[in-house]
Structures are given as structure tokens and as C-alpha cells.
């Protein structure tokens, strides 16, 4: 049986990686979407680990909803990216500079 701490280490590393990814990566929007996905999965890992260790079901139910929401979020994000690609022929975040001030 793997101790609870290990799961928490895993989830916090996942969260830290995805957050640094979002802060440092300034090119492709798809990468940012993947980082956001990873952040949600880090939270899911926490929920499942805690739920298992205290034998309480609501955490696992939470995970179902989070997965659904993540799918909806990815759908909307990709739609907006398609929209941008149609207008600019690339999805480089550096070239989105029309709104400034």
C-alpha cells in the first residue's frame, strides 16, 4: 500500500509543473491548454487519494464532475483557438498583440 504522502507529493509536483508551464511558456496556445488540464488532474489526484484514505465518497463524486467540466472547458478553448487560426493562420500567443494600453 502506497502511503498518502506520496500521492500528495505527486499532485503538488504536477500542479507546480503546470503552473510554471503556464507562466514560462509563451508560444503555443495548445501547450497552455494542456497545462490547464494537468492542473485539474493534480486536483483530481488529491481528491481520489484523500477520498481513499478517509473512506469518504464525496471526493470521488467530485472527480466525475471535474472531468466533465474539464472536457467542456477544453472544447471551448479549442473552439476559440480554431477561431484565431482562421483569422491569423497561426496560434502563436506572442502575435496576439492588438489589445494593449
Amino acid at each position, binding site marked *: 500500500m502506497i502511503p498518502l504522502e506520496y500521492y500528495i507529493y505527486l499532485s503538488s509536483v504536477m500542479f507546480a509543473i503546470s503552473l510554471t508551464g503556464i507562466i514560462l511558456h509563451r508560444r503555443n496556445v495548445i501547450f497552455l491548454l494542456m497545462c*490547464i488540464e494537468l492542473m485539474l488532474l493534480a*486536483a483530481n489526484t488529491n481528491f481520489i487519494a*484523500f477520498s481513499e484514505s478517509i473512506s469518504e465518497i464525496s471526493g470521488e463524486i467530485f472527480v466525475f464532475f471535474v472531468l466533465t467540466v474539464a472536457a467542456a472547458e477544453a472544447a*471551448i478553448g479549442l473552439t*476559440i483557438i480554431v477561431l484565431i487560426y482562421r483569422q491569423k493562420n497561426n496560434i502563436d500567443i506572442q502575435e496576439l498583440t*492588438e*489589445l494593449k494600453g
Partner: protein
Amino acid sequence: MILGIMPAISEGFLLLMSTCILLLGTVFYQKQAKIIPWLVNFSMFVGIILILYSAELPTGLYLHGEYAHNFLTVLLKLVLLIFAWIIFIYTNKEVESSTCVEFYVLALLSIIGMMVMISSATFLTLFLGIELMSLPIYTLVALDKKYQQSSEAAIKYFLMGAVASAIMLYGISILYGISGSIDYLTVQQTLKNLLWVGSGNYAYTFALLFILTAIGFKLALVPYHTWAPDVYQGSPLSTTIFLASVPKLAIFAITAKLLIEVFPVLVEVWQVWLLVIGIFSIIIGNLSALVQTNIKRLLGYSAVAHMGYMVLGLAATTTEGYSAGLFYLITYLIMIIGIFATLILLDKQLSIEHIQDLQGLNSRDPLLAGSMLLILLSMAGLPPLVGFLAKLFVLKALLTVGYIKLVIVALLMAVVGVCYYIRIIKVMYFEEPLHTDLITVKPYKRILVAINAIVLLLLGLQPVLLMRYCEMAFLI
């Protein structure tokens, strides 16, 4: 725990209506364009009636403890629906007819999300409410498919918003690990016990900071405010009026709920956070708004400053402060809806982008210019209008708990704020118009804008009409 769907009846009805409108809109694509605004008006009217009807129910938790019902939730939902209805009346026929159905359906779904947030009693309903509120708004921002700025604003808003909800979710997962439950009451009890035992577990402070960060993103407070001006500028006006107004009510509701109900034991932490972030929002929001030439962007920065004042009200941590914050928010929403409504009405003829586009408005349409004058003076916080009283209540609540230096800074920044509102007034009244033709606007919309401005004057003379309810909401 009472099993009953009655407190959520209004949400259920609106969900039914939004799916009906979606169905009608897709089946009879062009022919039914006229009936859709009427259906929306009908659903908002019945929604308000249902909320008034459910107000009679005993307060408490419903739907297996997922749904709270008390005076605060009823008041906020009522205000939310009334403001949303006013927005729908203003945007009637102003939305491009090819995206009319999408606009109404998405806006209705977003309103349902806000109502779920307002009455959430567990973190699950809170998270689902936030997502149901935000996802349609990201789409609404991108609704204008030909306009390049629109999709750029949408992707910026989407990335910021999605990161904020993911951060909040991580905070919730830590809280779940500490307390083994996701409902507010149990979490609050556990935190109280933990602190009483004096256990050196700082995980709950981390969880609080994660949740506060997410709230800062959603309210556009200072370190996290960068999206607000971009999104205000980039989205079509009918979306800007929506996203600049009603979501703030729902986020205020969850902020007040979480801080007062779930984290009362960590009051030192969140009070300091709110004070710091509030005062910096006021300073940076007002100073950045000074140099703007785009009027939507200017209003975006002024929104940052106004949210700073509202948060300062919460930071007083007294009943007086909470009700002052709610009063500030509701009056701010009346002003921001009025100002964007005027811009929407003028947009067809003037194509509003910069402040200069309003040149000489007074000689072309005295009534609209006059209403805008009242609204702008109220935003600036000049005495006979309600904006002054709202600021006064917030700062008075802060003074009674003894933050004199903060109050002085906030006052100085309010003076800075007056400058840029006066600049708009100067352009409207003292510059010559480029064209001299009169503005043509539907009379009922013109009257609605005038009423909007008069309400500000009326509330400024009789604040007790609104303040009474704001106080009642936080009495318990």
C-alpha cells in the same frame, strides 16, 4: 435537511426556457427571430415571480444540503435577475441578428450558473456554478466572429479564467483532505477544531490563499487584473455590458459566503489580504484609467478601482462593512449598466471606440448626454448622487475599525478618479460635434436610460431604500 426542489425552482424554469429558445432558434432559424426577445422577457419575468414565491420558504439547506436558502441568496438572485432583464431590454435588436439566439441562450445559461453560485452550500455546487457562469461568457466574448480583437480577448479571458478555476479547485481539494467533507459547515467546524487544538497545520492557510487568488482573478483585483481592460475593449458591446455587471454579484456572493461562513477562524489572514489587494486595486486602477483614450478600456480600469472599494468594505469584517460592500456593488452595477447601455444606443451612429467619439453629444441628444452626465458624476462620487454615499459607507466602516491611513489613500485616489470622468464630460459638453444630425433611438430605451440615471439621484437622496435590505442580508 429538507428534501425539496422549491428554492431552485427559478433556476429550473430558466434552464427549461433556455433549452426551448435554443430549440426554437435552431429549428426556425430566421423566421422566429422576433419571438425570441419576447420569450426571454417572459422567462425573466416568470423567473423573478418564482424567486419572490420561493422567498416564503423557511431558511435552511435544501437538496441534500447542496443548496442554501436565506435572505441573502433571495436578495442577490432577485437583484441579479432584475439587472439581467434590464440588460436584455437594452440589448434587444442591438445584437447582430445572426448571433441573436446564441447570445440569449448563452447569457441565460450563464445567469443560471450565477444563481447556483449564489445559493451554493457545498464546494461542489460552488465549482459547478463558477464553471457554468464562466464557460458561456468566454463564448460570448468571442461571439463577433469577424472582429479580430474579439477572439484575442476571448483567448486571454479563457486562459486566465481557466487557470483561476483550476487554482480554486486545488484549494478545495486541500480543504477536502483536511476536513473530509465538501460542505461549508463541516469544513468550518473542522477548521475551528483544528485551530482550537493549536495544531501546527498550515495547509488550511494554503487552501485559503489558493481560493483567494481565484477570487482575485474573477473580480479582476490588482495583481490579477490584466485581463479586465483587454476583455472590456475586445468584446462586442452587448457582451461587455453583460460581463461587466452581473457576474460581479455572484462572485461577491461566494466571496462573502466563503470568507464569513467557511473561514471565520482565519480572519487575520484574509483581512490583511483584502486590505492590501483592495488599496492597490484602487491606486493602480485609477492611475491607469487616467491615461486611457479608449472608453471601454477606461471603464475596464475603473472597474478594477471600484471593485477595490467594494473589497475594502468586506475587509472591515463588521456587519456594517459587509452591507456597505453590498450597497457599493449594487449601486455600481446600476451605474455601469447605465453607461454601457448609453454606449450601446449610440454605437450604431457613432461607432463608439474612443472618448473622442462622444464629441459634442449634448447638442445632438441632450437627454442621453444628461443621463450619462449623472451616471459619470455618480461614478466619480460627487455628493448628491449615490456613488458618493456608497464610498462614504465603505470608508466609514473602515474608519470605525481604525484604518485611518488607508481611508486617506482611498480618498485621494477617489479625487484622481474624478479627473477621468470629468474628461469624458468635457468631451460631451464643451466640444463641437463633427456631425449635427440627431441621434435616433427607440423611445422606450431612452426613457429607461433616463430612469437609470434618476434612480441614482433618488438613491443618493434616500439611501435607506436599498441600505435597509443590504443590512438585513447580513444580520444573522
